[in-house]
């Protein structure tokens, strides 16, 4: 059966990594691009087969055992994979969107000297992401979890000769590691609580437990800390905007569509544990919402097109956590899927713009590109509508599902969340208008060279635009005459999905959010098209709120002052004073007498080494001789 061949899905990209890694300097670019993309396509094809096979199978959970990985005493960690509705659908997203982004990269990276390296890293990323998705226990998941972190590090620092980029890469790795410590400690608690790290052993036990246990709450909290690092939530989100230093396809694949949603995937997978910890669920909802709002406010004033999208990603991830926090696991995962489509699309469109403008990312130097880049414009418009949440585009359905659950849970949270959704519509259309409308604000010389991207780049845009437009079909709610296929599909993994409001309320909620979104778009239209407003240059003084937003609430500066600098000072103190003066001073005090007394030893150092070796041998031989003589 094809499900038993699931190990091929990650293995084939790994082979692609090895081949392209070895041939990176010798193969032609077209060969590298072909190998790199086709391995992902093969994985995608197998994933489709697995998805179909699982659909027609009564058994919805298959474990595929490969080998014993770590075992020590009672601890046994097999390298084995779990194919169930949740992982099967993630496989499709990772390999499907991954494949499109590989195709795109052939065009986007064609003149980069690191072409081979880039494709090998991308393949390696897909390999680790698939391990993360497929692991049948927390530790195999953790291999993928940290492995994608490594690829993220390598790809953010892809142009490593720029030391800012290299620093951004390091920052991403370290911040993720903070979360990872939480993850690891959570796994330790899981092991001592459930006696295993295997999902199939843990969740049945969790299903039989009652909410309120302190240890379970701690486990949930620690896993959530892990998710905060990987999925860029407060307070660990500052690495993601910096991660935009990587090539744009990387931003689309890793820092929007797949890796950053790993935290949501992990929590959705562990939904039975989180259901047992209502307090932590509340924490998750609040952190998610706070992240969504803070990031949305920052996005309002950013001028770098990729930074807008980066903060928008942080904000959307916040919405997903908000959904998880109110128990809407399906809604959150639904948003993972639609977000993968439209955010990958938006980043790739931004990449197409950047490509056309020869690495210009500042929207203040863009404008009027609608005619010059028609495909990019239309597809980006679709992506923007999708994220803003206008029906019938995909983002509408997933976001509204989350919001509806939030409403039932807590009306204040809903109010804030809906306000954030209006901000989203505003800053996204601001980006669209600044980029494609009005007059071109770059130099006349550069204007002539602007051209639409090659087919290898526009093809993925078109496919993703279609998916962004119609992707919502998998989760049309009953109230709109759908049957919510996704909820049914995920039912074996996610049973409890939170409560929805009654139909009348749901209509009103939808109407409010759609009306608000349209008004926000109107504001953006008025300001950036009617008034042709262009963001002011960096050095201009801004009003307080705009200044805070533009400077990202000074998070980086605060972390620097509160954490990095004090640690470095402590480091210097420990080294120069405590180690060299205090401890070593005591040691030297003790040693002084001994050293004085053993001055004779010093004389030995000027001698002939050969002589000492000879003496050692003589010594050893005489000891041996003594042995034989005394026998």
């Amino acid at each position, binding site marked *: 059966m094809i499900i038993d061949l699931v190990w091929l899905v990650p293995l084939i990209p790994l082979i692609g990594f090895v081949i392209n890694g070895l041939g990176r300097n010798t193969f032609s670019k077209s060969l590298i691009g072909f190998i790199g993309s086709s391995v992902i396509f093969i994985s995608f094809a197998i994933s489709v087969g697995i998805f179909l096979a699982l659909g027609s199978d009564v058994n919805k959970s298959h474990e595929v055992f490969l080998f014993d990985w770590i075992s020590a005493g009672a601890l046994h960690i097999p390298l084995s994979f779990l194919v169930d509705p949740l992982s099967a659908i993630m496989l499709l997203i990772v390999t499907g969107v991954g494949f499109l982004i590989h195709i795109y990269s052939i065009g986007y990276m064609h003149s980069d000297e690191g072409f081979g390296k880039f494709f090998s890293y991308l393949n390696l990323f897909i390999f680790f992401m698939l391990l993360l998705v497929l692991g049948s226990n927390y530790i195999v998941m953790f291999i993928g979890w940290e492995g994608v972190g490594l690829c993220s*590090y390598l790809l953010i620092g892809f142009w490593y000769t720029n030391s800012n980029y290299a620093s951004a890469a390091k920052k991403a790795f370290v911040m993720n590691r903070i979360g990872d410590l939480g993850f690891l400690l959570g796994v330790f608690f899981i092991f001592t609580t459930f006696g295993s790290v295997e999902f199939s052993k843990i969740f049945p036990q969790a299903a039989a437990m009652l909410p309120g246990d302190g240890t379970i709450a701690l486990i949930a909290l620690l896993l959530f800390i892990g998710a905060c690092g990987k999925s860029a939530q407060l307070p660990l989100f500052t690495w993601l905007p910096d991660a935009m230093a990587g090539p744009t396809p990387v931003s689309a694949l890793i820092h929007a569509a797949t890796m950053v949603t790993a935290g949501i995937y992990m929590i959705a997978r562990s939904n039975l544990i989180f259901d047992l910890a209502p307090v932590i669920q509340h924490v998750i909802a609040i952190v998610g919402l706070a992240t969504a709002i803070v990031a949305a406010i920052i996005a309002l004033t950013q001028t770098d097109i990729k930074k807008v999208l980066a903060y928008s990603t942080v904000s959307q991830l916040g919405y997903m956590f908000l959904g998880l926090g109110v128990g809407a696991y399906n809604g959150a995962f639904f948003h993972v899927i639609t977000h993968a489509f439209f955010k990958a699309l938006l980043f790739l469109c931004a990449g197409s713009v950047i490509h056309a403008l020869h690495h210009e990312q500042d929207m203040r130097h863009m404008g009027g590109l609608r005619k010059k880049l028609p495909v990019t414009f239309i597809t980006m418009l679709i992506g923007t509508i999708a994220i803003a949440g206008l029906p019938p585009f995909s983002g509408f359905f997933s976001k509204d599902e989350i919001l509806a659950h939030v409403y039932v849970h807590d009306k204040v949270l809903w109010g804030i969340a809906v306000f954030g959704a209006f901000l989203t519509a505003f800053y996204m259309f601001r980006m669209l208008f600044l980029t494609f409308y009005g007059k071109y604000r770059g130099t006349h010389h550069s204007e002539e060279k602007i051209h639409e991207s090659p087919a290898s780049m526009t093809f993925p845009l078109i496919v993703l635009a279609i998916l962004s437009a119609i992707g919502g079909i998998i989760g049309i709610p009953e109230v709109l005459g759908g049957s919510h296929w996704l909820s049914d599909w995920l039912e074996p993994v996610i049973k409890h999905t939170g409560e929805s409001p009654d139909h009348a309320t749901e209509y009103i909620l939808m109407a409010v959010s759609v009306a608000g979104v349209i008004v926000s778009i109107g504001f953006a239209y008025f300001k950036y098209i009617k008034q042709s407003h262009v963001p002011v240059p960096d050095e201009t003084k801004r009003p307080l709120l705009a200044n805070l937003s533009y400077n990202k609430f000074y998070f980086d500066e605060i972390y620097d002052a509160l954490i990095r600098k004090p640690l470095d000072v402590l480091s210097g103190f*420990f080294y120069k004073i405590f180690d060299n003066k205090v401890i070593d001073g005591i040691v030297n005090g003790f040693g002084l007498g001994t050293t004085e007394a053993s001055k004779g030893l010093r004389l030995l150092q000027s001698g002939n*080494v050969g002589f000492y070796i000879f003496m050692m*041998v003589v010594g050893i031989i005489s000891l041996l001789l003594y042995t034989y003589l005394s026998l």
Partner: protein
Amino acid sequence: MEQLLLLLIFLPLVGALVTTFSGTAAKHVALFSSIVSLALTIAVVCNFTPDASTQFVVNYPWIQDLGISFHAGIDGISIITVILTNVLIPLIILTGYKHEYKNGNALFALILFMQSGLLIVFTALDAFLFYIGWEAALIPIYFICAVWGGKDRIKVNMKFFVYTIAGSLFMLVGIIYLYLQNPAHNFDIQAFYNLNLDGAQQGWVFWAFFIAFAIKMPVFPFHTWQPSTYTEAPAVGTMLLSGIMLKMGIYGVIRWLLPIAPAGLQQWGYIVIILSVIGIIYASLIAFTQKDAKRLVAYSSIAHVGLISAGIFALNTQGMQGAMIQMLSHGINVVGLFFVLDIISSRLKTNRISELGGIAKQAPILAITALIIVLGTVALPGTNGFIGEFLLLMGVYQYNIWIAAFAGLTIIFGAVYMLRMYQNVMLGKTNDLTIGFADIAGTEKVVLYTICALIIALGVYPKPILQLSEASVQHLIEQVTQKLTSVN
């Protein structure tokens, strides 16, 4: 089978003698000898039954009047350290291939002498023999550092020597004390295990041994000899010290300290664990701002050893098994790191981080291999470092959750200082110094490729190694806990 162990121990000695007199061919002779040792090790591993028993035992009466015998053997714990020694020695010899040493034959001979001493330490079942090996391993490394080291070598080395000797004297006192307590008046390990010492006596024995081992590893605050010694020693010396020699201390704890003085562990173990964890954080923080890459790695080694030590004293299967595989992994990784720095300093004459940068552009293969070693050091899953750190942290966690949380900071701090170093050395723009940096070739490639292959192989499939030691480790833990219940 007994001959195999004797051969294993004494072959390097023969190799050393031949090396001494083989002039310019010395390095080849030494390499050949070490490869034969490696082959013998493979034979030992193949013939080893992974149970708790001690195998390949040799037991000859030696100095009968004093009850000293040449008693040695290999169990699942020894075999890990034997593998460590005999895998690393050929690699370390190879790292010396490109250097032009004055009196190179003496240097290579000393390495082989040291190998013999180390193997005695790791296989001895007689306390006197153990002590002989302990000191026999020290003398060659002393000369290696004192003769071929950097400009401050004499002063630094004297401190190292005196400090370690002072530590060993404590152990010697401990051994003699045990000997006197032993009604059979011999140095046999089993007799020592069987001694009926009360809690206070075990407490004293505990400290006598612990100080010797703590200095060797080194555990905070007994570490101040280490950074300077590592920095001033020639690269091969640093590798021998950090890769293999410090494991003498760890091994000593497992083989001698825990089974002989479990009551001491019960009384004082928490202090050791706390010291170890302080060492992890303290040394990591110091590594943050080190200007010399070699000194940075030296401090990072203190942090790593701190975790191993904490895992051992937690006294459970996960912690102990983590220590076993981490001894191997740390040895491999630290040799790799010091070799990368040696390659850089022999080309550029400096290891000052601020002067370097942009080497990756010039030497991509060195950069890739160095990255893999760095990843192993920061315990990325899929590399050898992860298996060890994961098991160690889990072991410490079972001892105490809060201590584990602090010890776990190593995975964050390690990433900070290692990636800082990697970035400042390898990434960024090529400067006037690093321009024209030649990529690795020949023996350099052989060594670094082997190390990278080991890092990944052990990380992906650690089972064979874990299996070798599991039974012995569990036996040891049972033995210690049993003895504890009988004391109480």
